[in-house]
């Protein structure tokens, strides 16, 4: 290989690397499209409770969050929204946030949905939600007594 060939080869390689940047980025449609994983998460995040009164369900959720050490930030009774957060003690660098919606169902039951985020990333582990609903159930049971 003489020198011109080497230079040529390097130029071709460099050129193709640089051209890679010229591919127009595809718009990320999947960000808004429903996926199977999302459906699964949704069912893990949702649970229906045998509670008739909207307020009782909401107060149960709030009490459960307090038991779990969360600080209630916002609550909206007519819409059934509760937002709460806490630091992931014992370390103070990770933040855990949760939004809960409480919606009455037609058959006298109440549907509770929780969305939890850990450092602004959604939590997808169903076990987390199982734990949360166990706490809600416990607190609703306490209210009944």
């Amino acid at each position, binding site marked *: 290989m003489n020198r011109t060939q080497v230079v040529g080869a390097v130029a071709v390689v460099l050129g193709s690397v640089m051209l890679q940047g010229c591919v127009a980025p595809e718009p990320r449609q999947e960000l808004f499209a429903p996926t199977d994983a999302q459906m699964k998460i949704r069912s893990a995040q949702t649970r229906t409770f045998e509670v008739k009164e909207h*307020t009782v369900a*909401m*107060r149960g959720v*709030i*009490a459960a969050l*307090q*038991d*779990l*050490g969360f*600080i*209630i*930030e*916002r*609550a*909206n*009774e*007519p819409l059934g929204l509760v937002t709460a957060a*806490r*630091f*992931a*003690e*014992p*370390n*103070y660098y*990770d933040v*855990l946030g949760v939004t809960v919606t409480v919606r009455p169902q037609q058959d006298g039951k109440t549907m509770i949905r929780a969305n*939890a985020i*850990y450092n602004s990333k959604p*939590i997808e*582990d169903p*076990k*987390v*939600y199982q*734990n*949360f609903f166990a*706490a809600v159930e*416990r607190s609703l049971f306490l*209210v009944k007594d």
Partner: protein
Amino acid sequence: MQRLPAGVLLLMGLLILLQGCVPQTQPAELFQLTPESSANRAMQTRFFDTGNDQELLSASAAALQDLGFQVEESVREVGFLRAAKERSAREYGQYRNRFFLWLLSLGHVVIPIDLHQKIAASIVTRPLNEAHSRQEVRIIFYRAVWKGDGQADRNYIPPGEQKMEMIRDPEIYQQFFAKLSKAVFLEPHAI
């Protein structure tokens, strides 16, 4: 003389490494009730024999105002109230520790100290029976602390590092409930 800074640096290195040993909590555990949960609940909760939850909530707001808090959020329908106050977080002990560590490390380490804090309270009242004749009041005090700047060898630590913790001093809760019960002329019952 040559060995001393090396030893100090080793110690510092070890201290920094040990910081990594704070147990990393998994989100799954964070939604689980811990053995402390019920103790915290007992400390933060009192029962009052009254049907008037609105009166309890407004008396709570007044008690917090007496303690210098500003109400930030309130939702009467679910008996929720959040209030906060900002204060200096400077402590004499921290300055002393910083000075000795600075001396020990021969001027290489300046640990950040707490500068400012926001103390907040979140209150929730809820009826305990069908007739609404007994109410539970739960208050959680917590604080967020902002740290100042510091230095570790040649690395500058910028100010503004933040931490938040629940206040676990039972006396603070007792004081609040004493004030509240005086305001509503009712005897508080612990769990």
